[in-house]
């Protein structure tokens, strides 16, 4: 089998504060292969964001290491693109200025990169809005612009930390559909953190369930859904969907007092 794109090897992360030590992650190992879409679900505060921060190279693990393409991650890696909870478009920049932000920061604005950004905007219906400002766009379009901003730096792997949680339910469905389509079409690998079990199942080919803090991997579900059109919305109607949902729901073991 080919080498995994991302190898998380026996990661431990501890946070230190005057109140004491918090072990956020314990012995996490995970392989992500080129083209896979992985969802991570887990109880609140179990270390999901921490895991993404480690993969992005923003946070050094206490133990263990992450390798991307076989090379250990040291500091921020250029092959990682990150999508935060809200789109974080800069309101004083036009859509064009927003989507080239990463290239600008990396000093990579050339005729060639501009052209590839132009193509992304055209392909995903935002070219006409390049001179508009974020507030003039709908929530879905803004999310698309945010995704293009991430794709512009040509990352190999996308990290989405509850990237749709700020959207209302309908928009969220449409946007997750779109994002999934774009990510597949661009041939990217993705890790999505979400609280929404349905979203996790419908978008991913593997769902990783984490335990309560300290987060360890409880189980990994390979998702196979029989649906004609392989889009997240349609996939929710697949007969297997409920099964996966119930199993993951039980494993999450959420008690509401």
């Amino acid at each position: 089998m080919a080498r995994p794109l991302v190898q998380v090897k026996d990661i431990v992360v501890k946070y230190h504060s005057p109140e004491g030590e918090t072990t956020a992650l314990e012995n996490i190992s995970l392989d992500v292969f080129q083209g896979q879409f992985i969802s991570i679900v887990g109880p609140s505060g179990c270390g999901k964001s921490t895991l993404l921060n480690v993969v992005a190279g923003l946070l050094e693990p206490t133990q263990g290491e992450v390798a991307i393409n076989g090379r250990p991650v040291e500091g921020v890696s250029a092959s990682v693109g990150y999508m935060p909870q809200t789109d974080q478009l800069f309101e004083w920049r036009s859509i064009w200025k927003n989507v080239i932000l990463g290239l600008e920061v990396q000093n990579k604005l050339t005729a060639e990169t501009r052209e590839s950004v132009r193509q992304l905007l055209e392909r995903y219906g935002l070219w006409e809005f390049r001179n508009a400002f974020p507030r003039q766009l709908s929530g879905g379009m803004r999310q698309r612009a945010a995704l293009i901003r991430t794709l512009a730096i040509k990352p190999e792997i996308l990290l989405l930390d509850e990237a749709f949680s700020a959207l209302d339910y309908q928009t969220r469905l449409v946007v997750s559909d779109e994002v999934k389509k774009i990510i597949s079409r661009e041939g990217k690998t993705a890790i999505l953190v979400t609280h929404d079990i349905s979203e996790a199942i419908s978008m991913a080919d593997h769902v990783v369930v984490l335990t309560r803090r300290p987060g360890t991997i409880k189980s990994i579900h390979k998702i196979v859904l029989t649906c004609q059109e392989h889009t997240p919305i349609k996939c929710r109607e697949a007969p297997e969907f409920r099964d996966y949902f119930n199993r993951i729901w039980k494993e999450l073991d959420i008690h509401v007092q």
Partner: protein
Amino acid sequence: MSNREQAISLSPEQAAYLRKVRRRKINIFLSQVLLLVTLLGIWELAAIVGWINPFITSQPSGILKTIVNLYNSGDLFLHIGVTVWETIVGFTLGTILGTIFAIILWWSEPLARVLDPYLVVLNSLPKVALGPIIIVWMGSGVSAIIVMALLVSVVVTILGVYAGFSQVDPDRVKLLKTFGASKGQILQKAVLPGSVPTIISALKINVGLSWVGVIVGEFLVSKAGLGYLAVYGGQVFRLNLVMTSVIILGVAAAIMYLAVVLLEKLFIRWQQ
């Protein structure tokens, strides 16, 4: 839809509504003018009839005469000019220096922590108490007054703008970090542009504060300016002169405040 299109397709109800709004606006303005005229009229009348002693209360006609005299002697715009200039330099420097200090504090969190108690003390201290020290250090000239005005506003600016910087969404900073942005780039791309509204509101506060600094400074040392005029008028018991300078001061301060508000509006429009 443009305004013109709206005007063409105006329904009678909308036209009536707009007329009502306009009429109300005019009524309010007329009432404001009427109030002013009435107050001035009563004041003048009371002085003429002898209910009050114009020697200690002054009177509108006396104030008017004083203004005309000042104008004829060429002193009116000298005094206004000096004070306005000192104030503008004061709040501009206060805002710029305050923002620069805030950037330094943002850049180095350890430094911000070390300086925190000092800033708290400086912020609580009534800056005008430093007046005598400033005069000794700067001499009794315009520079002492400007330093006074600057001191009054700089600490508030540091604290306000630094607080604004700290409010930048951590996710936004994280996003820039994943692009590999340096600290300088984070400042330049996200923190500074995102804090422009905070800086403008600091500027707005500083306009008011600088007037206080300038007038106190002029009370202490000056040879020209509206504050000087008021103090001088008080010393030689010419209440008309005191009232004149206070009234001009009020008008000048209001105009300057409106100018900053206009600047803010222009900025917001430019942003859209």
